[in-house]
């Protein structure tokens, strides 16, 4: 249904003393998402996963590669016809709702963007229906966003995305900013909506444990590159890349016994290392790095059917 080929997005950064430099936020990412599938995208902040999600929706223009949606290349075309088919749910629910609009107006905006000919009562009914589909009562339409809790705001964000009856939704860290109890509720809601409406998700998160609840397939991103790709089970149970293993290890232990069994050593901060010019991007942190890793960038290779990993050691 959706395919990206070598998608690239570079940013120019002006540095205080070093002049301009190029940040390769998304550097040649190729992935494909099947209809009614949830594709999970994991990686730490700054790895380009959000940029990738936005580039797919052309909310930011990609600098290279192509996006193929439903068999059509949408990399350079006018997006208006596709806006109603592809939607996005944002990370920070309080920031993604206009503070001066009522909930009803926020959702109605989406409905009106899809079909502008609705009469006022029809519009109101549609909005009520959407609110109910995210398990809010219709009287929430008259509230302002700041009167709602984080979980309720996120529900409104979902209702707005559903207003245009999309097929494909980019969920950009939809639960990271929420309390644990809300996280579970929102995940459950997203799953239910997917089943009922036949949605396809690109689910972005930094937390593998959250992604796993949602995803059929998982892609692991590190500094702009996809380093591992496979079914949820494969990635979680048999992680091939050292970075995936580090991500798995970072998840807090669910109980004290597991916690004691885990023997983590305290590592130095490494997110600020920047992207190396050549070689594997993870080589400086990888304990198994061989000289080859520093010189040549590994490509995605199949380790088992449908499970790909970019590592020289495999």
């Amino acid at each position, binding site marked *: 249904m959706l395919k990206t080929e070598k998608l690239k997005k570079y940013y120019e950064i002006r540095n205080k003393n070093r002049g301009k430099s190029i940040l390769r936020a998304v550097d040649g990412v190729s992935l494909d998402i099947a209809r009614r599938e949830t594709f999970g995208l994991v990686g730490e902040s700054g790895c380009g996963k959000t940029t990738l999600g936005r580039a797919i929706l052309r909310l930011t223009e990609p600098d290279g590669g192509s996006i193929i949606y439903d068999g059509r290349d949408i990399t350079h075309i006018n997006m208006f016809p596709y806006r109603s088919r592809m939607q996005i749910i944002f990370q920070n629910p309080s920031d993604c709702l206009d503070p001066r609009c009522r909930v009803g107006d926020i959702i109605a905006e989406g409905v009106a963007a899809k079909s502008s000919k609705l009469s006022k009562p029809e519009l109101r009914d549609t909005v009520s229906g959407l609110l109910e589909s995210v398990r809010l009562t219709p009287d929430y339409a008259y509230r302002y966003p700041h009167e709602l809790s*984080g*979980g309720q705001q996120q529900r409104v964000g979902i209702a707005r995305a559903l207003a245009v009856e999309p097929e494909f939704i980019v969920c950009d860290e939809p639960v990271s900013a929420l309390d*644990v*109890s809300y996280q*579970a509720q929102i995940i459950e809601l997203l799953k239910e909506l997917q089943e009922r409406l036949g949605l396809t998700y690109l689910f972005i998160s930094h937390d593998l444990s959250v992604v796993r609840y949602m995803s059929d397939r998982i892609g692991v991103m590190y500094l702009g590159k996809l380093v591992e790709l496979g079914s949820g089970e494969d990635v979680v149970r048999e992680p091939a890349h050292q970075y995936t293993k580090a991500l798995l290890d970072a998840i807090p232990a669910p109980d004290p016994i597991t916690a004691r069994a885990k023997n983590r050593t305290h590592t130095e901060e490494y997110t600020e290392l920047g992207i190396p010019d050549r070689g594997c991007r993870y080589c400086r942190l990888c304990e198994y790095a061989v000289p080859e890793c520093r010189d040549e960038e590994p490509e995605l290779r199949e380790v088992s059917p449908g499970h790909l990993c970019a590592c020289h050691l495999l």
Partner: protein
Amino acid sequence: MDISSDILLEVRDLDVSFQSRQGEVRAVNGISYFVRRGEVLGLVGESGGGKSVGVHAVMSLLGTSARINAGSALFEGRDILRLTRRELASFRGREVSMIFQNPSSYLDPVFTIGRQMVETVRAHDKGISKESARALSEDMLRSVGIRDPERRMRQYPFEFSGGMSQRVMIAIALLCKPKLLIADEPTTALDVTTQAQIIQLLKELQEQSGMAMLYITHNFGIVAELCDRVSVICGGYIVEQGLTDDIFYHAAHPYTQALLKLIPRIDSPKNETPPSIEGPPVESVTLPKGCIFHPRCPCCMDVCRQNAPPQTALEQDHSASCWLL
């Protein structure tokens, strides 16, 4: 070890309310907790449950709309709720330090990290020279895992990533070697990988220095890794407290049980829907009658709707407030 005599901070029957436009918000309703020397106490609950307020009140960090209605907070036998402004200034930082959720907003953007650290040292120790304060700061930065501290000290807060600023905050908090470190959700805004590093760092620093720690969080996973004891707070009441193992393996209160089920488990079978607690957290404006958790409790009885349950002691250090016990 004689446990009862070694109490560092003891908060008793703390009751805090806020004046808001909707009326009086009862944020904390008579909570009691204590921290022993060298121990890590986890304060767990959902946001809005009063866990932050219950701790900020102790440090006199609440705004003008808050009122402490009752209670005492004894730190080494001294009631710190009744300290004068001047006593408080030397108390904070030296005896007790705090780290917060968003470190970048607690660092002054117009001064270098080094200057902020040196000033902190000198504020509490007037006699120390600038050079030795600087050396102390550098050592501290090194011990929180920041490489090249000399260069880093000359940088401004915006040049640090989220995880790095949190490390700097921890370094500043530990400069005066406090007896108690209060951590208010220090990793909530961070990535899972960075979170794991910060927790590991805190754990190591705590073990090395033997300071006590009060860790506020909504994530039970962190508790499992870090805490010796846990207090579970809900709607401004402490519903259960006990040793970490007791809480995890013999949780008595339905709220604790529900929170425990929320821990994401990577080893659970695929596609199992995550459990969740029914309904939203309690609104402090309209506290329900009876047990604080009854509107969301799966095993709610008639008595729960009428009367608040008393605290029942289960084992040593383990107690819970529930009619089921």
